[in-house]
């Protein structure tokens, strides 16, 4: 398509230049014989016919490509529900057995060479799911659930980003897609299933108490604890994720501490309030969260 466009552009500009030069020469040499209207009509008609023909071919190619991409269906597909929130992605791996369902956020793991169906919707405003290396965009529209079929052909980590303006932090609503072999994918999914383990040492247990006594459980869930908030990302396996704040920061302990203390500095306007904890509590909390692998 690019080369067709380049060719058309060159042809039109060449026509323009020749026309321009001839027009200027026509003025300076008044004895020149101008092309007849009939000859001009013929040329214009041929050019229009060529345009129409070329466009028809492009149309046919476009529809055919669309069909090919759209024909990706299979019964053995993995089903993943993606829900958009201001400004993060909720990702749920469905399973017939409720206790086997996995809920995570901002990181999508996919098996390669297998069709995957993404069922997308939104809880608040319109977002758009877009991982350029995987597939075109699909809008996440509240009140609608639509299905997108994708298939990753090679392993790797790909970045995705919200592509429909969704408010203040539209710029910081990214996600990472990890495409991996069936074996790795199954291992990852199995690791995501169990609830959080009890922390082994005292510092981490103190961190858990800080978590439970602060406002955290009002919004976040950690399966296996009393924290069951529904409005913010599930933290059961937070430490296994690669980024914080929907792709805003790499997930390291310094960043985690910074994020907890003042998320508004890092991502102004996001829904998480600042938590000015004293240093000991903060360290304990970070130590606890790091156990959530």
């Amino acid at each position, binding site marked *: *398509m*690019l080369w067709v*466009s380049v060719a058309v*552009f060159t042809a*039109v*500009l060449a*026509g*323009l230049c*020749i*026309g*321009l030069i001839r*027009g*200027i020469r*026509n*003025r300076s040499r*008044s004895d020149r014989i*101008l092309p007849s*209207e009939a000859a*001009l*009509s013929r*040329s*214009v008609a041929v050019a*229009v016919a060529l*345009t*129409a023909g070329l*466009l028809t071919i*492009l*149309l046919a*190619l*476009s529809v055919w*490509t*669309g*069909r090919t*991409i759209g024909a990706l269906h299979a019964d053995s597909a993995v089903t993943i529900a993606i829900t958009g929130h*201001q400004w993060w992605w909720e990702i749920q791996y469905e399973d017939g057995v409720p206790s086997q369902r996995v809920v995570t956020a901002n990181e999508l793991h996919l098996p390669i060479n297998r069709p995957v169906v993404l069922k997308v919707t939104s809880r*608040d405003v*319109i977002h*758009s799911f*877009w991982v*350029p290396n995987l597939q*075109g*965009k699909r*809008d996440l*529209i*509240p*009140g*609608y659930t*639509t299905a997108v079929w994708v298939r990753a052909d090679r392993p790797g980590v790909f*970045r995705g*980003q919200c*592509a*429909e*303006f969704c*408010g*203040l*932090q*539209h*710029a910081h609503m990214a996600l990472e897609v990890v495409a991996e072999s069936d074996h790795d994918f199954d291992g990852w999914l199995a690791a995501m299933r169990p609830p959080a383990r009890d922390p082994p040492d005292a510092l981490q247990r103190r961190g858990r108490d800080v978590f439970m006594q602060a406002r955290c459980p009002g919004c976040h869930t950690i399966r296996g604890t009393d924290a069951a908030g529904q409005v913010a990302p599930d933290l059961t396996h937070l430490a296994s994720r690669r980024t914080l704040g929907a792709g805003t920061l790499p997930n390291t302990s310094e960043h985690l501490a910074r994020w907890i203390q003042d998320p508004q500095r890092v991502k*102004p*306007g996001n829904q998480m309030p600042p938590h000015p904890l004293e240093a000991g509590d903060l360290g304990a909390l970070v130590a606890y969260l790091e156990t959530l692998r």
Partner: protein
Amino acid sequence: MMPSQGLPADANLRLLEQTWADPRGLYGWLTHVDHKSIGRRYLVTAFAFFLIGGLLAALMRLQLSRPDNTLIGPDLYNQIFSTHGTTMMFLFAVPVMQGLGIYFVPLMVGSRGIAFPRLVAFSYWMLLFGGIFLYVSFLLNAGPDVGWFSYPPLAESLYTPSKRADVWAQLITFTEVGSLAVAVSLVTTALKLRTPGMTLNRVPIFVWAQVVTSFMVIFAMPAVMLASTSLILDRLVGTHFFDVEHTGDALLWQHLFWFFGHPEVYIIFIPATGLISTVIATFCRRPMFGYLAVVLSLVSTAFMGFGLWVHHMFATGLPQLGESFFTAASIMIAIPTGAQIFCWIATMWSGRITVKTPMLWILGFFTIFVIGGLTGVMLAAVPLNTQLHDTFFVVAHFHYVLIGGAVFPLFAAFYYWYPKITGRLLSERLGAWVFGLFFAGFNLTFFPMHVLGLYGMPRRIYTYPAAMGWSGLNLLATAGAVLMTCGVTVFLFDALRALRAGAAAADNPWSAGTLEWATSSPPPNSNFLHPPTVAGREPVWENPPDQPVIAGLRADAREVLVTHVLDAEPDHRLLVPEPSIWPFLTGIAVTILFIWSIFTPWGVVYGAGPVFVTMVGWFWPKRADEGGTQLWPIAHRTLPRPNEAPAAGGAV
């Protein structure tokens, strides 16, 4: 019946000029209804909004010039890009084209005035007050921040509790009222006020373009007014048109908005093609090649323009067959535009070209618009579209189409018609500089955006991480924006300089063929002291020396000749309204109602009072000699020669 007939000729002309003069002084200024005065205001106001919108764009480019920049925060950035888009679409592009129509359509059809002049004056106040309202809100930190498209649910009160979305929706109401009124007036002027001899197939292409555009306005604008009013109702009184939680539908908005939004592009582009045809014909010294093909292209573009709106919604997940239909429509609309481009090239091919500044801008138009058109064909293909949609590729595409397709022709028109409006010529030398700076700056700004879009940079983000590798191209784009700003600054300087110190322009400095050049520069108050009749498409070139002029129109009252739609045969004479303060007062009253209704539904109830009073004042019946609508039947239809006295009975 006609006291003016007893006067000697020059006294008669003085009386005529007095009759058509608009009053002086501040109060007088508020009462102007002359289409030239209103047209000038439209052009100056729209251009001022172009400058302001451009400044906002420059701010965005500054913010994006490097990664993780903290110069402008997300809250302000979102207001800036929303206000930039809204300004350029509603306060610049549409009004500036309509302003050219208001000024030049009556002149080009050889009429002394425009139809419904007070309505046009009222439209201007709507534009001005709407624009002031938007920018006062912006300065009060209440500028729209949900995009120029204002998608619910984001624009609903749950997610935008401030007044920002209301400001946007109400600005739409302001500008749509204004543009609808102008559209009605332009259609009527072009169809009913043409001078005898200007049959439909001799109407200048620019006038055709204005008529086609005005019909598009009449059909497209109600859709967006419906949408914006529903949004205001949702926010103000809790209706649930778009409220998903209460059985509303978020997609309904997109259909309504884009049913307007796509034709909007052609509402901006079609008048620009009219400008191109006008300028090319003049500088090629031949009538436009393929007149019929060009006019039919305009009409078919207008029809097809209403069948493409879904290509803005390919990512929403529509059935494939439906998508294919809209892909086909979006691809096929390139055919009439292509036909026009070939006709322009054919005109140049067979013409005798003089390259002056307006022609430079037309050549710039070709280069840029063809790129924009081709990326448009790419975007029409669903598989590419779902990748490129809402990325910087699209930003590049529509700036190539809109700046290339509308702003370049507009600058051509500014250079072309500036001498007609002001009686002064702009500098050819500075003109080449302005063109060079703007052309280079434009490509430097927007070409890299294609690549950024292909690299995956989404639109409407206030910053991006350094790791994405988008920094270099963004910096390049910002550098281009600086060049463009320089170009516009030089233009502004030249335009202001030439007002006082420019070389005096002849009546027809470009030896053009259409009727606006058959009068002085600037035109007299009455447009034509002796309104000409026409015998061809390019009357100044084609009229025989003894072509009749219209005589017998009153000199002591604002009288125009009304003709038949198809053959422009004289029908009757009509008195058009005198200057009046009522359009201004009605504008104030409507403004109060619009702004008040953002805050409480009672604003509509109480605000209707002043609107009613001012409307009554406006429509109060007048005696015939004050500009009432008494019709004088035409006694006979032979047209007098220039030196003949009009026949008894006072017909044309």
